[in-house]
């Protein structure tokens, strides 16, 4: 290990260049994994390398990924939101209800987004207003929001969405590029910029590393966190619009269990579950990996649960392998 001399003055800005840091980063590891899976899939199935099939495959992850972006920020700030899947259900139920009242497509979008936002407000108020731990609060609201959908819908379903509404989940912007995929790309860029290039993003990191010190440094901790819960709510509302449009119907069990999928995606993307570190490119790569694994196994007609074993193993091993490797290297060095 190189010893660095501590010089009293003229401290350099950085010790290593951009390239060196990039090479050592989590994202490059994920990138390699993604490439391996891509190659593996192409070899395993003749149907994989087809633009339309690849386009269909993106539907497997775009909706979860939208939420994962906002969730990444929440987790970096040291909190978690387990209620996202239930927000999808409640927002979808509200849109279904609005259809019965004769709302048209633009109004439905407004309803979906505002219900998502409202759920975010509830979470945000409980967590930042009352200072309750987010993991417990959102386990509670997870039951509450989906429970409300069950009370409204029971064993019924809302259907009859207007034809134009189906564009969000089934429409294409250009050639094979679906609306959902385009939205995914746009959101990835927006979230990447917000987290990595703005003062707001820096505040998120600061809060995740040391909330008290961030507060003393003049960061409006409560406000930032509240905004983050609003964002996850809003993203869940957006995902709800896409999913509802793709399914063309609403049942209270919609998107059941997605919260764990979203968290898995975020963690696989290299976001520390303890807060304080992680990047959007990492999450994007994780989304692509999870989507490709699901689709690749699907083409081989492997049952979904086997894919989840794979994702589970991937989750543990991508975190464990670098640790083991570092240890082995240290042992060799001695």
């Amino acid at each position, binding site marked *: 290990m190189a010893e660095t001399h501590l010089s009293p003055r003229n401290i350099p800005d950085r010790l290593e260049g951009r390239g060196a840091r990039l090479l050592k980063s989590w994202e490059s590891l994920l990138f390699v994994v993604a490439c391996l899976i891509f190659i593996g899939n192409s070899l395993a199935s003749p149907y994989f390398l087809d633009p339309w099939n690849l386009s269909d495959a993106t539907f497997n992850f775009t909706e979860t990924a939208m939420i994962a972006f906002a969730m990444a920020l929440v987790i970096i700030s040291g909190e978690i939101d387990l209620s996202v899947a239930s927000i999808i259900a409640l927002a979808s139920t509200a849109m279904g209800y609005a259809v019965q009242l004769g709302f048209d497509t633009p109004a439905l979008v407004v309803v979906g987004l505002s219900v998502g936002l409202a759920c975010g407000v509830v979470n945000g108020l409980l967590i930042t207003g009352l200072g309750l731990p987010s993991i417990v609060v959102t*386990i509670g609201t997870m039951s509450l929001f989906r429970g409300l959908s069950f009370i409204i819908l029971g064993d019924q379903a809302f259907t009859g969405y207007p034809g134009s509404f189906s564009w969000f989940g089934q429409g294409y912007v250009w050639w094979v590029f679906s609306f959902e995929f385009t939205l995914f790309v746009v959101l990835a860029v927006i979230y990447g910029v917000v987290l990595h290039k703005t003062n707001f993003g820096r505040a998120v990191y600061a809060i995740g590393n040391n909330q008290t010190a961030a507060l003393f440094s003049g960061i409006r901790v409560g406000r930032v966190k509240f905004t983050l819960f609003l964002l996850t709510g809003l993203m869940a509302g957006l995902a709800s619009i896409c999913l509802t449009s793709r399914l063309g119907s609403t049942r209270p069990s919609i998107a059941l269990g997605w919260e764990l999928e979203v968290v898995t995606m975020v963690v696989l993307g290299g976001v520390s579950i303890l807060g304080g570190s992680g990047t959007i490119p990492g999450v994007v790569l994780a989304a692509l990996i999870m989507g490709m694994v699901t689709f690749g196994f699907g083409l081989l007609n492997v*049952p979904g649960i086997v894919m989840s074993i794979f994702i589970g193993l991937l989750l543990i091993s991508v975190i464990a392998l670098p640790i083991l490797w570092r240890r082995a290297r240290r042992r060799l060095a001695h």
Partner: protein
Amino acid sequence: MMAKLLKNRELLLVGAILVLVVLIAWRFPPFIAPTNLARVYNDTSILIILALGQMAVILTRCIDLSMAANLALSGMVAAMLNAAFPGLPIPVILLSAIALGAVLGMINGALVWKLDIPPIVVTLGTLTIYRGLIFLLTNGKWINAHQMSDAFKSFPRTDLAGIPVLSWLSVVTVAAIFLVISRTPLGRAFFAVGGNPHAAVYTGIDVGRTRFFAYCLSGTLAGLSGYLWVSRYAVAYVDIAAGFELDIIAACVIGGISIAGGIGSVPGAVLGALFLGVIKNALPVINISPFAQMAISGMVIITAVAVNARAERRKGRVILKKAEAV
């Protein structure tokens, strides 16, 4: 006096449960018949056992999301053993389920201990892996009542002094865990590790190993519950107890166990589980739509954290001595 009593979290919960039971009895008197209350307890036994395991883990500032999956896998293996060798004595099956559960818990514990992977990530991963293993083991096939031996199915139902073995087992578990938590160094280490892991190192407590033991405990209890669940409902398949991990955590939260670690008690966990158990059992009886159950659980959880947080909130240190007091 009253205010002091109310400050005690466990008493508050006892009160809440009593009020709940009285309210239910008002709508539906047979609910408070002793036999029915015993039945509710029996029905909640498994949740109580699991909540105790989760409590140990949460005390050390970890979480075990894989408990329900562990339960399902151990239960499935118990059922498969029974189906393959119907003559195998029940204690052997029970012990193998417990042993398997313990091993699965150890895997969690070892990953947390030796590789330092955050507990939520470890158990999120093993949650899907354990459940997936059931599928690989069975190809998704169910094991049904007719494939299980009568001894297998009747063990938890057998009456001992008028109370089923299932209830007895949970009582014994509660007593054993209470002893471990309050009177053994390991039990105290749970609190130390969760209360201040950094300081625990300085105290000579091996934080990782303590967590490992907490996971062993939760795994063991999940294994025990696996057999109990499968024999009680006389069916085993991939999805048994799916989503139950959240009920377990909810029971702990309602019981006042701090998710931040270091705070909690055995009576709290038991009462938290009972509270949920009473609600679950009461709703169908008092004709509240089963669809409302989920929303009610949610409200209860939120209320419970809010109340507990209030109780925990430190009252400011008083520096000022008031003039009149001088």
